[in-house]
Every structure is written in C-alpha cells, then in structure tokens.
C-alpha cells in the first residue's frame, strides 16, 4: 500500500523501489523500501507522530529529515535514542517510540501534563543549587522521567575500531562548494578526502531547488559527481560524520563502527547551513517542518510530505519550495512571506500563476492542531505590524503541511571548535566566521555565500588557497562575494498562550528565555545553563539563534553584542564504543612467562609487566606465600627478576656519570664488584634504587626498579644532553632475562650449571660480580642479598631466558628447587628491612628519612639532588621510616593505614605482613620523629577504626647480623 503513495522517479534518490521491506513501529507493521530511513518509511505510510517531547509530552514528527533534531528519537530493539531520520529501515526491525506513559498515540502524561508542572524553567539549576538537599528529593522522579530510551543490559560488546587516514586536503561536506573544492584540489594533484554525512554526495543539490525550472541542481550535481567519482585522487566517505576539529587538522570521522582519525594538511569545511524555524504558537506540531525537510522527503524518499501545504518564508527559497511541492502534485494553499515581498518578482509571478495565494508582510501566528495535538490542520495567518507583533485578527487556512524557511544558520560547530568566531550582522541578519586557524578554510553557505554559482566559485577559491599553501599551485585565489540575503531578522511571534517553541528538545518557549533574562541572566551562556536551552540532542542547531535574538532584545542589545552559544565536540552524539573501540593496552611478558603459567603461577601486573605473585590457587595466597618464603629460607628458590630495569653505561666518562647521577661514590668502585645505587631527584627525594656492577673500567651495568627504569633512563639521557660527558647510555631492560636463585642450597644448584666460574665463597664473595656460562648460556652473575639468603642473580640475553629457567629447574630437582613469586619476595625483603622505592617511599622521602645516609657520599662535589639533600638534612627531621612488630594475633594493618600521634596523623604504614620466620606481624611505617626510638610504641588505626599499638624495632627483623646472605 505504501508504494501507492510514493511519488514517481526521479523523486526518491535514496530508495530502491525493487526492494520493499517491512518492520514494526510501536507494534504495527509498516512497509518501506531499501534505502528508507525509519522516519521516511513511516512518513510514506502517513505516520507522522514519531515521539513525545521531553517535558510536555507533546506529539512530535519530522522537523529536519536530516538527523539534526531530537523529534525523531526512537528506540531500537537494543539501542535507545536513535535518530529515525538517519537510521536505515531494516526488514523485520522492531522499533518503539520513547518517553511516553501508555502508548505513543495516547500518552497519559501529555493529557495530564503533570510532569511539566514540576519543571519550571531553571528547575535543574535551582534544585542542584539550593535549598541544600533539594536534589535528593527530586532525584528519584527525575531519573524515572528524564531517561528517554531503555538500555539492553544483556548487550554484548561489538567490534568497533579506529584507523588513521592521511590526506593533503580533507573536505567536510559534499554540497556544491565541497564538490567543487575537492575537484579543484584533486585536479592539481592533492590527495583529497571528501566526507559526507548523507548516503549520497551532493548536499543541497540532492534536495534543494535553485531555479525556476528546477533543473539546475540536477545538472550541476550530475556533472560534478561524474568528475569526482572517476578521480583517482579523491577518496569519498559517505554516511560519515566529521564530529570535531582538533589542533592541526586532526578530525574524528565516524563511519559505521569505525572512527577514522583523519589528519590533513589542509581542511576545507563546506558544511552548509541549517534551515531555521519560525517561532509561533504550536510550531512543533507534526506536519510543521522545515521547507528543506519537505523537499528532502520528496527528493530523497519520494514521500509526499502532505496534501495541502502552506509555506511560511523569510526568503525566496520558500517560493522555490512551493514550486517543488506544486510539481509533485501537492496543493499549495498559500505562501506567507514575512518580508514585504520577494526579491525575485519572476518567482512570485510563477507561484501566483499556479494559483497560489501570496501573503506579503504576514506570518503564521498559530498552527491549529487536530485533536490531541496530533497534526496541524490549519494555520492562523496575521499581518505583521511590528517586530514580533501581529494584527488582532487574520485569516485561517486549512492545511496538513506547513513548511518553514526563516533563514539559515551556518553549520559553524567545527569552526568554533577550531577557535573561529561567529559574528552576526544585525542589519543584514547575516553571519560570518572569522579568526580561523591556518590551514582551515570554509566555503559555500557556511561562508555566507548563497547563490549556486557563487557557492561553486567559493569552493574553488578555498581549494586554490589550500593548493597555494600546499605549494601545488601558484594560482592566486579569487575572492567571492554574494549579495543575496536569506535571513529574516525577527521570525519570532510570541503568543500569550505560549507553546511557541524556541527549543524543541527541551520544550522551551519564547517566554522561558525572556524570563531567564528577567531573573538577571544576561549572558547567553548563562541563559543556556539556567534554562537548558541548546543542551538537548540538537545542541542549539535551531534554538541558538532565536535565543540570542530574544536575549538581545530583552536586554536592549544586539545579537552582535550578545553573541551566540558556542559548540563543543562532538558535533553529533557519538557512542562510547566509538571512543573506546579497539583500545590498545600493551602488556609485557618476560621470556619465562609461559613457564610460570605452566607451573600454576597467579600473575599480577607490575607496571605493564606481568609477574608471578606466587604459585598456586589464589585462594590460598597467605599459606602459599609463607610456604614459598620458608622454602627459600630453608632450601632454595628461584624468582624471575627479568622485569628489573637494566641500564648500561660505557665510555671514558661512565664512572664520572655514575658519580653525578647516584648518591654513592662510584669513581673507585672496583671492577668485579657491585654497589648499592640510590637516585634522588633535584628535590632530594629518593626516586629509584638499584645495583651498580662495574664490568670494566669504562663499563657499568646498573639495575633499576621495574617501574622506575624508564624514568631513570630518560633522566640520564636528559642530564647528559646538558653535561656532554663522553658516555654511552643504553636501556637494556628487555635485552636481559634474569632470575634470582636464593637459599642455603643456591650454590649447589648453580655449581651444576656454571662450570667455568669459581663459586666458592672466596672466589665469588657476597657483592661480587662475575661473568661466565650457565648451562652454556653467557651470563652475568651478581651475588646479592635482597631476600637475605645466599643468592645469585643470573642475567642472560633475553632469547636464552626460557632455556635458563628450564636448565635451573632441571638442575634444582635434587635440591627441591621451587619457584617463588613477587609477593613472597616482598615478604622476604621485608624481613630484611629492605626498602622498596615507591612502596616504602613517597614524594617527600629523602635519604635521611630512610636511614640511607650510608649510601650518600658527601665527599664528592655534585650529584643530582645533592644541594637539596644538604638543605633538608640540615633541618630538624620530622618523620622516619621505622620497622615495627605486632603480636601475630593482632588485627593486621594494611599499607596506607595511619600512624597517630595524639590527635594528629604522624605517618602511615608502607609495608606489613605476617612473617613466620620472625613469628609476628612485621612492617615498615613512617612515624613522627619522636616516635622513632627503638622499643617505643606507636598507635596505628586499622580497618574499622580500631587502634593497634606497634613496637619500634631494629632492622632487619631477621638474621640481624646478615650472616646468611654472606655464606
């Protein structure tokens, strides 16, 4: 049946009449065609009511047919708030209306209007503001009423992604200006990206009439399209929205499930303009729409927008629209021209000749609805007697379609985001954009050019400017001007009974805006925040201009003075999936990673590394950790320490460089020995630590913390960019895999594999460094004491890492070698009182607080942070990191729990764990300097607010004479 009502070709550019489809809307079946939007398919069935308005629950229908208003928000099966005039109709789809109580056709909230009574203008503003707590009173009701659609909570995430696109020139909008700009740029050799929101190229050429005969647009479009489509330099994206402008022409363009990150050397915005509505009573009824919406319905979808039309206009385009309606067999009862008369007498004559009545100097004062405000059935036409004023009586004309053309507002959103300034000339009622950044240009009606020939020329002018900047042409751009006026300066006719909508999304009437100014909000931005005008889905596309005019008028200023509300990204609503889609979250794995998994490790993140926390069932964490620790203390364990940072320093100045970077003295560090290395920043704060190995006179290998190495390496590079020492600095973190083999039997295990190294206590003493082969793998061996047992760190080139691990497991079998994890290692080092930088230190920790004075050389002339350390250490100390114990059955403090001193907070716990080796809870905490004496007690506030009293003890907790590590 629907096919019967459609217009004949060439109407219906977007639909394929051979492909009918059906879908349901609010439970009823409707027919449409492939290519139909949901709104056009419904309109083809004369179904005009699509949604209910936000506040008054008024029936709403298509307004722009371009996806630029909130009237068409509908609910898909799994997705709310979809624009029905943009979303394609799909066979079998189940579509629902939104925001109603009962049914879309019979909304109880509309009849009673009980919601709106609670929501005067400024409601949100007031209830967020005062009285205190008002928000909590209203929140429940607002949340119930304010949400429009329904989310599908069983939604399965789909694959969205992003991709860069690089071009010399990007052209946003494919109307006559965009097409001509793209062509000119491409013909000069530039690579061009042409971005179009609609499914087809052509912009206004696809729906607008430019001449009496109605032939010019089609002819021009056919010509331009043929040339664009065959041009190898032009890449075209249709159904793609450029949603923002960011610095240096970085443009997010959304097409389907992909967000393109377009980077262009030159950007030409030919985004066109939005047709503006007229403010009068009931201007929101279904059947009242922009003239361009009516012509889009016809040209794009072959849908008759009505049977009997009235055209209300403030420019000559209204006459052209009337002709278009007449050509498609629609009766035009009247053209109501708000001006004194048309610019083109020929146009008026042509319309008159077809029996259409013309009312010059008149307006529609009120649209008269059918029952329940479901559709327009007539208009009340009055003579305009002054700005916004009309005669006391007029004429009523029946119609089921009212087309509005008050003028155009440039699609300025991207340009404002780029820092452009929108200016309004009050006398000519014209806009202009200025202060655009370099390499961003505008062309066509967004640039205030309105005749077709001039628009094409303006596109070429913008392209010529871009080509000049790209040095692809030397042609001087020719300035284009246009005298044609398209805006009526006061298309606002307030009605004492209201419902004269300025903002359809937010149901704001003319008086609401005026009242806001009477309450003292003079700035348009404040009026926006107070009244919420322009905050709905259409983001002020239609409301910004009438709002500015009303504010200007009621504050005795001009629109030039008040300005217009600006627009931030995104240009149109975008899904979080587009922003979040295909996020890259790198992880790093050591060469032994898969062995850990095979051995049942519970992995934990350490920076972007994955490390074993312990081995076994996560539920048994505490027991497993204690067992692993006891095993290291009694037998032998092995831990993957490949994530430790590694930095190599080579060259004549390497020792001098070490001396300047780290706090200790390194000039005389013997070859074959290791030394503890602490790094402070210029503030004197400890920011990292590691072990320095001297491999040769001019060769150091320094470890750094897993999370700190990147920063340490960068700081080293930056310092040497200034010092110009003769040293080469390399970050070798990923180049080496490493393990720490620790425990009383560590030597026995290693002896089986390292046959070319003297492992005797004399030949390879504590803190020595050796090189040799382990299981045939070239290795760097460090005798270290981090966990306080006889231990060897074995560093090998990363590609050998897994083979090293395998060899150790095999060799260790007879000694019951077991792997241990990071959590276990933390317990073991805690028992030894070793500080972990960034766990036991914070942004204030200087060496004195950490009792690291021994690792700071005051004899050398300089190290980074030296002067700050000197200054801080000369002052009275305020806090100190101390070891503490608590009986095993005490409630265990956690990291971050507060240390108290009287009423005050004096510090906090940084590490705390039960130690089976010590037999009590042990920990490190910052305490007030007066609380730091060994043997004294200090209170810690633990979970639940309980206080436990910890005892300060000497460090280390275990093996106080450090005999075990020196074996």
């Amino acid at each position, binding site marked *: 049946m629907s096919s019967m009502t459609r217009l004949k070709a060439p109407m219906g550019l977007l639909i394929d009449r051979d492909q009918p489809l059906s879908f349901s809307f609010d439970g009823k079946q409707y027919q449409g065609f492939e290519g139909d939007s949901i709104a056009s398919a419904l309109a083809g069935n004369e179904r005009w009511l699509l949604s209910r308005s936000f506040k008054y629950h008024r029936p709403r229908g298509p307004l722009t047919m371009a996806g630029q208003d909130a009237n068409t928000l509908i609910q898909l099966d799994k997705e709310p708030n979809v624009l029905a005039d943009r979303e394609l109709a799909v066979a079998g789809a189940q579509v629902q209306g939104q925001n109603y109580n009962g049914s879309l056709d019979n909304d109880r909230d509309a009849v009673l209007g009980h919601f709106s009574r609670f929501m005067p203008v400024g409601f949100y503003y007031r209830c967020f503001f005062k009285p205190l707590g008002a928000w909590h009173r209203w929140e429940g009701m607002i949340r119930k009423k304010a949400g429009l659609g329904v989310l599908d909570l069983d939604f399965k995430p789909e694959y969205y*992604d*992003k*991709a*860069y*696109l*690089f071009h010399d020139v990007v052209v946003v909008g494919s109307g006559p200006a965009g097409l001509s700009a793209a062509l000119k740029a491409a013909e000069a050799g530039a*690579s061009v990206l042409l971005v179009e929101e609609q499914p087809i190229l052509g912009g206004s050429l696809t729906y607008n009439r430019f001449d009496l005969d109605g032939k010019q647009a089609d002819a021009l479009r056919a010509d331009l399209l043929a040339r664009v489509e065959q041009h190898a330099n032009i890449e075209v994206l249709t159904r793609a929205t450029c949603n923002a402008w960011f610095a240096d022409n970085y443009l997010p363009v959304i097409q389907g499930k992909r967000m393109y*990150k377009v*980077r262009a050397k030159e950007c030409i915005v030919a985004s066109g303009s939005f047709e503006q509505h007229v403010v009068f009573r009931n201007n929101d009824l279904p059947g009242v729409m922009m003239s361009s919406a009516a012509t889009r319905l016809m040209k794009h979808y072959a849908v008759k927008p009505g049977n009997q039309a009235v055209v209300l206009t403030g420019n000559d385009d209204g006459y052209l629209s009337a002709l278009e309606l007449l050509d498609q067999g629609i009766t035009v009862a009247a053209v109501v021209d708000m001006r004194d008369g048309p610019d083109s007498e020929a146009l008026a004559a042509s319309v008159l000749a077809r029996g259409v009545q013309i009312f010059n100097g008149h307006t529609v004062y009120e649209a008269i609805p059918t029952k329940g405000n479901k559709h327009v059935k007539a208009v009340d036409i009055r003579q305009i007697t002054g700005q916004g004023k009309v005669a006391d009586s007029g004429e009523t004309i029946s119609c089921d379609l009212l087309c509005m053309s008050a003028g155009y507002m440039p699609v300025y959103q991207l340009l404002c985001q780029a820092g452009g300034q929108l200016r309004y000339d009050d006398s000519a009622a014209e806009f202009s954009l200025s202060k655009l950044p370099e390499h961003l240009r505008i062309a066509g009606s967004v640039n205030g050019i309105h005749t077709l020939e001039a628009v094409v020329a303006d596109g070429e002018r913008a392209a010529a400017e871009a080509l000049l900047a790209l040095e692809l042409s030397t042609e001087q751009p020719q300035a284009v001007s246009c005298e044609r006026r398209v805006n009526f300066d006061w298309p606002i006719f307030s009605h004492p009974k209201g419902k004269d909508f300025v903002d359809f999304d937010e149901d704001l009437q003319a008086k609401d805006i005026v009242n806001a100014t009477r309450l003292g909000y003079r700035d348009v931005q404040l009026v926006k925040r107070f009244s919420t005008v322009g905050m709905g889905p259409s983001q002020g596309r239609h409301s910004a201009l009438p709002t500015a005019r009303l504010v200007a008028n009621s504050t005795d200023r001009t629109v030039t003075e008040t300005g217009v509300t600006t627009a931030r990204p995104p240009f149109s609503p975008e899904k979080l999936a587009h922003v979040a889609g*295909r996020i*890259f*979250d*790198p*992880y*790093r*794995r*050591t*060469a032994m990673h*898969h062995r850990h998994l095979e051995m049942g490790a519970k992995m934990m993140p350490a920076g972007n*590394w994955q490390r074993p926390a312990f081995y076994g069932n996560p539920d048994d964490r505490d027991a497993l950790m204690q067992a692993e620790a006891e095993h290291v203390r009694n037998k032998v364990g092995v831990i993957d320490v*490949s994530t430790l940072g590694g930095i190599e320093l*080579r*060259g*004549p100045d390497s020792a001098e460089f070490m001396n300047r970077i780290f706090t200790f003295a390194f000039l005389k560090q013997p070859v074959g020995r290791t030394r503890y290395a602490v790094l402070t920043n210029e503030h004197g704060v400890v920011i990292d630590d590691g072990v320095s190995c001297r491999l040769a006179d001019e060769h150091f290998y320094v470890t750094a913390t897993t999370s700190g190495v990147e920063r340490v390496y960068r700081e080293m590079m930056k310092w040497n960019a200034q010092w110009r020492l*003769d040293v*080469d600095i*390399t*970050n*070798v*973190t*990923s*180049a*080496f895999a490493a393990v720490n083999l620790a425990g009383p039997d560590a030597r026995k295990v290693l002896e089986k594999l390292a046959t070319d190294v003297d492992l005797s206590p004399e030949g390879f003493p504590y803190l020595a460094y050796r090189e040799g082969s382990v*299981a*045939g*793998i070239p290795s760097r061996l460090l005798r270290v004491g981090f966990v306080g047992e006889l231990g060897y760190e074995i560093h090998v*080139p*990363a*590609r*050998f890492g*897994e*083979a090293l691990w395998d060899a150790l497991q095999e060799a260790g079998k007879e000694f019951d070698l077991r792997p241990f994890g990071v959590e276990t290692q933390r317990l073991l080092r805690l028992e030894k009182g070793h500080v972990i930088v960034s766990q036991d230190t914070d942004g204030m920790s200087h060496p004195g607080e950490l009792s690291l004075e021994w690792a700071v050389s005051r004899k050398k002339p300089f190290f980074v942070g030296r002067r700050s350390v000197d200054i801080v250490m000369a002052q009275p100390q305020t806090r100190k990191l101390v070891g503490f114990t608590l009986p095993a059955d005490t409630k265990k403090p956690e990291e971050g729990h507060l240390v108290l001193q009287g009423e005050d907070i004096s510090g906090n716990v940084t590490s705390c764990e039960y130690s089976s080796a010590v037999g009590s809870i042990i920990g490190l905490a910052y305490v007030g300097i007066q609380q730091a004496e060994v043997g004294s007690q200090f209170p810690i506030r633990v979970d639940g607010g309980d206080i436990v009293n910890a005892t300060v003890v000497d460090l280390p907790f275990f093996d106080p004479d450090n005999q075990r590590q020196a074996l």
Partner: protein
Amino acid sequence: MSATSPESLSKRSFVYRQLAGASFRDIAGGAMATGVAEGNNNRSQAEQSALLDLSVLPRTGFRGLTAAAHLQAAGLPIPARPNQASVTGSGELVLRLSQKEFWLLGALSDSGAGVDALNQRGLPAADCYSLYCQDSHAWLALTGAHLPATLAKVCGVDLREASFPLGSIAQTSVARVNVVIVHHQLAGVPCFSILCDSAAAEYLWESLLDAMGEFGGEVIGSNALL
C-alpha cells in the same frame, strides 16, 4: 634430518608460541618457522597480507662517533641521513637511527651470515659501542599490498608510499608500543619490518594480526618467500 623445534634450541624467538604446529629450521641457533600449520604457505599470501617472525635472524647495532666508520670499513653502505635504510649486496639492511646509531639486520638468504661477519670484526678504539638489538627487540615482518592501510589502524604516522618510500624508517609507536619500522622488500614483496620491545612481542603480534584481519592477512613461514 630430525625436526627442529623451538624448545630444542636454547635461543628462542619471543613469539615462538604463536607459531605452534609450524615447521622450523635452525637459523643461528634459533628456530625459524618455515611453514605454518594452517594457512597459505605461499607467495601470494605474502603479496596480499602476511606476518612473519624473523626474531631469530641475526642482527646487531653500533652507536658512537666511529660507528659509521666501523660499518664502512666492513664494506657496508651507510645511509646518508637518520631514519633511512640501505640494502647491502647480499640483502642485509643497514638502518641509520640517528647521526651515530646504526643497526644491521641479517639477510634471510644466508641466515644472517653477514651480521656474524661484522660481529667478528674488532671495534674501533674509541666511541663505538655495540647494541643489544638481538635481545632487546623482536623482529616481525609485515608484508603485502595493504601495508599502509594496515598500519594506519595501529600507528599515527603516514606510511603511504608518497611520504614513506622504500628505504624509509619510522621510529614511532604501534599499538602503543615503541617500534622501529623499516620499509623494504623481502624477496621482492613489499615489507614493513617492525622491530619492537621483545617483551611486548606477543602483544604486538596479536595486535598486528587483528589489524590485518580485514585484508585477509595470515601468518606465514619463511618458505612462502622462497
């Protein structure tokens, strides 16, 4: 001939687990996949879109004021400017990463023998330091006709031919991992060699395969390029 497997050798690629089921051969003491278990092991796949692990192929690097002279003395062609690569007669790639940093990537044809030869040469007396790129970096080769479009999904640098011609190098971020990308040819097939942090190799491998999906990309072994 007994079958080579990655775990039978002590030098292992950082992504050998991604190549489960492949056939391997021993290259410089590591296992190189020659053919994968599933998929096309042929040249047409390489010409369309393919990912190849070259991590076990020898490579080395030198940095310092005399590094260029060291390479030159070995008869290697020195790229004129940083971020350019040149190809030797036997197929090695010489990368110039800064004024004074050079990497040499071995050729598939001779299993990287040219790199070993360079490593045998004594270093200049001063200011030339060997680098650890064999271990610090994995070497993944992406081949085929869709290289710029594939990389555009994971990298913010314009890698189209016009701005990234043959012999170009980009030191940049791919899928948020720092990499060196070299544009060259592998057995006549367009190729981006990607040298990435070896610890992130498995991550990057998966990210690249994901990006290649829409172009019909698959993993190949080295025999596909014979």
